[in-house]
């Protein structure tokens, strides 16, 4: 009966082989798993699979079209979720490529902003930057806005929030890449980035950053030296 049924389901030998696997499982005690329908759905599509399942339900005693379609729906759902995950992964990659966060020096991250900055992009960028700064214990983040065509009130707001958040992590911020027309607009809008250091170009920004990093190192050494040299002081690391 199988042999008679198969050609009615498909002309294609490969599809027939897939149907055969499914039909074999159908007559076995456990019943078929919806996974067997996945390759069929991918190859033939929903319409043909649905017709095939109807044909099977009509022909084979004890098989219910409803049950078979339910299996197909499950398999279809799984395929859809897989495709969604893939789409999300691609979106992530695209987004990461659009705004890279680059470690350009020890403890220094660089974020070159390009294109427009809407609220979703700004939010995602801020989250990524904060995670990166925290994970790498960055001492300085350089934000280069040369690639932003304009900075209006909204974008200014996003940047200010991002800078404030980075500073809360204990990381310094150096802003660079503000061109004359943008500088003009910002002042007219009353936006000043007072809470961050501002460099006139990337080279200047890097120099400022290295200075910051160096200052930190100097202070660290001074502290260690003090701990060594002063005999009554030192680290009391027990409670109380």
């Amino acid at each position, binding site marked *: 009966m199988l042999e008679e049924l198969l050609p009615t389901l498909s002309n294609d030998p490969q599809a027939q082989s897939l149907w055969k696997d499914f039909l074999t499982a159908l007559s076995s005690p456990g019943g078929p798993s919806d996974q067997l329908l996945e390759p069929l759905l991918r190859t033939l599509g929903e319409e043909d699979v649905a017709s095939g399942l109807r044909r099977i339900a009509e022909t084979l005693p004890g098989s219910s079209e409803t049950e078979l379609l339910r299996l197909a729906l499950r398999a279809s759902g799984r395929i859809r979720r897989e495709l969604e995950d893939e789409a*999300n992964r691609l*979106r*992530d990659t695209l987004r990461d490529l659009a705004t890279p966060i680059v470690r350009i020096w020890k403890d220094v991250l660089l974020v070159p902003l390009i294109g427009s900055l809407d609220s*979703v992009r700004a*939010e*995602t960028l801020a*989250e990524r930057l904060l995670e990166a700064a925290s994970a790498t214990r960055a001492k300085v983040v350089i934000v280069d806005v040369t690639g932003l065509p304009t900075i209006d009130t909204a974008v200014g707001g996003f940047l200010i929030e991002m800078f404030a958040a980075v500073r809360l992590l204990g990381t310094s911020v150096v802003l660079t890449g503000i061109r004359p027309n943008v500088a003009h607009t910002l002042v007219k809008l009353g936006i000043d980035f007072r809470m961050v250091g501002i460099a006139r170009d990337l080279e200047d920004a890097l120099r400022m950053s290295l200075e910051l990093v160096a200052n930190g190192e100097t202070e660290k050494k001074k502290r260690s030296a003090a701990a060594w040299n002063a005999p009554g002081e030192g680290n009391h690391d027990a409670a109380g």
Partner: protein
Amino acid sequence: MPRQDLGFGVDPESYDIVIHIRREQDIATARQVVKNFAQENGFSLADVTKVTTAVSELARNVYRYAGTGSVCLRRTTRDHGTPGLEIVAVDRGPGISDVARVLAGGFSTYERSLGIGLAGVRRLMDEFEIRSEPGAGTLVRVTKYRRSL
């Protein structure tokens, strides 16, 4: 059984979770409950934090300015089926006479701290609605949608 009204027509039956705010500890309880609810509903860590912080602010406002009230949570969806979380903080307290002024920073210390919390909540959430009537109470409804990333 007659329909309950927590204030401004808020019916607890139409919410997934209702937390009554009566004592100071209830603020922390509300935080924990919404944190779990948001996590269970697939919100990102960043958004769980925002929602939890918002509830902390709203629950505290209810406790401090009204004494008692409720924080209600429910799942919701937007037009294209984007899932979201709706939070309603409602009380039958003294109400706010000039909401706009409070949101803008207020004049007194009382208004200022109330305002800072509310203004902050508004910036964290995707939707924000506030209704208040002196003598009748206050309702704050906010919604956060899950980002389809």
